[in-house]
């Protein structure tokens, strides 16, 4: 069972602000979901190779050369705030 502190910690790691009411509801929902997941935790999987991906093929490699065109203007046109080709965020260093 997740404690209130654990829920707050997870929300902080996920960068999600939760209101006190939300945190309360989320805690109950998360505990319900984790209880459902617990069925899986009880299975003995000693010696089973984890499957991270449906394909066993190796990662493809390509020639080490730039292929992407410069689309800075198109991409920055949809940003919330830019200046002189840079993305603006609140000050992080005093």
């Amino acid at each position: 069972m997740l404690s209130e502190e654990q829920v707050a910690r997870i929300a902080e790691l996920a960068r999600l602000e939760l209101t006190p009411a939300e945190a309360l509801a989320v805690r109950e929902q998360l505990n319900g979901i984790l209880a459902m997941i617990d069925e899986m935790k009880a299975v003995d999987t000693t010696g089973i190779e984890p499957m991270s991906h449906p394909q066993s093929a190796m990662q493809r490699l390509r020639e080490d050369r730039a292929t992407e065109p410069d689309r800075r203007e198109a991409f920055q046109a949809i940003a919330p705030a830019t200046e002189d080709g840079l993305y603006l965020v609140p000050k992080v260093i005093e």
Partner: protein
Amino acid sequence: MHNRTLKELAEALATKETSSVEMTRYFLGRIEKLGKPLNAFITLDEERSLAQARAADLRIARGEAGPLTGIPIAHKDLFCAKGWRTTAGSRILANFVSPYDAHVIERFGEAGAVFLGKANMDEFAMGSSNENSHFGPVRNPWDLAAVPGGSSGGSAAAVAARIAPAATGTDTGGSIRQPASFVGVSGLRPTYGRVSRYGIVAFASSLDQAGALGKTAGDLAILLKAMAGFDARDSTSAERPVEDYPAMLGSGVKGLRIGVPREYFSKDLAPDVAAPVRSAIDEFVKLGAKVVEVGLPNQHLSVPAYYVIAPAEASSNLSRYDGVRYGHRAAGFTDLRDMYRKTRAEGFGAEAKRRILVGTYVLSHGYYDAYYLQAQKIRRLVANDFAAAFLECDLIMGPVAPSVAFDIGAKANDAVQMYLADLYTIPINLAGLPGLSIPCGFGAKGRPVGLQVVGNYFDEARMLAAAHAFQQATDWHARIPPGFEKE
């Protein structure tokens, strides 16, 4: 016009019975006239659609038309399309206009298809009811009180109501097959890697796969041929030739071995779904196939494993929405971290938040082995079950969902109940296999039932041929919801 297959629509264009502009106006008109209560579309752009239709008409006049040239197709709002608002059903992308095309959108563009509009969906493809859209729920054309399924609910409802000839979708845990089943259309999720994921808003990258929804298996064959193929921009795109699915539709089912998992017809399956599914399998036997019993002993572990793997991948994929480069940014905040927190709190809906939190937890320090690693081992067991079953059969058949479409609101407050209803579709995603749903009857309250056909890796041609044989012998796929039959 509204009930014609893609092939018939192409013929109407080739013989000059109609033009692409007229056809596009016709379907936009149906969306306007009949589509309102369904809420199947998030964005329509008549001018853009008609510009493409005019270009298609010129191409047809030059004698350069392909099987999709001039035909309007709806796209799930998870596909980035240059100049189109691409929302993924989320507030956080509500004003995002994509600067580029997804590979699938490029392919349809090259084929000369007309972009009919952006179909509604569960936020970030997370949901089985289409109730999780920031743009409101989609309703089932068979019964407006019922959900259309999800997450490709808008695509499914649009095809069922004949307000779109066909639509694209994506399927991470059943998001094409389950809505196809709930609204009585045909839907195909191809093998993982068959269709490029480039430009599809990412949910769970080792499970996501694009596919299509249409009225018939023949339509799906045409759509898959257009969508499939290698794309270097998706590192998991399969480097193998695309088969001529439409040309292989007539292969029939004589001698085909149909595996029916003994675990499928259990107490979890509603009797009004079990009966039409069994009758459909009997129909295949009449057509010359034979049934063999197979076992999928680990399938009951699929939902728990999926709800570790999918949220884990989602929490990672959705970390990109930070209010810096695109999408929503909160108005008031104290510092950078607070901007992230508030932006994401405002931008994501309840289900997306739940999955981000579950994913963050299972990946966090000290829990990784017990959850994520264990889930990956279970995933192997599930895939091994299928590999063993396919030694004894060519296709696996069974239900898509344990019940017919449920009422809007019925499960909205119980996430776990909603998750557990995906028990027949999720194992296929974990294994990376192709699966399709075709209409096979009706259950309680006259709501549609789908038959699931699962193939071995890259065996889409055989699946489509079997579905086609069934549709030649039955007419479930030709039923139109009341109120949507008229021209």
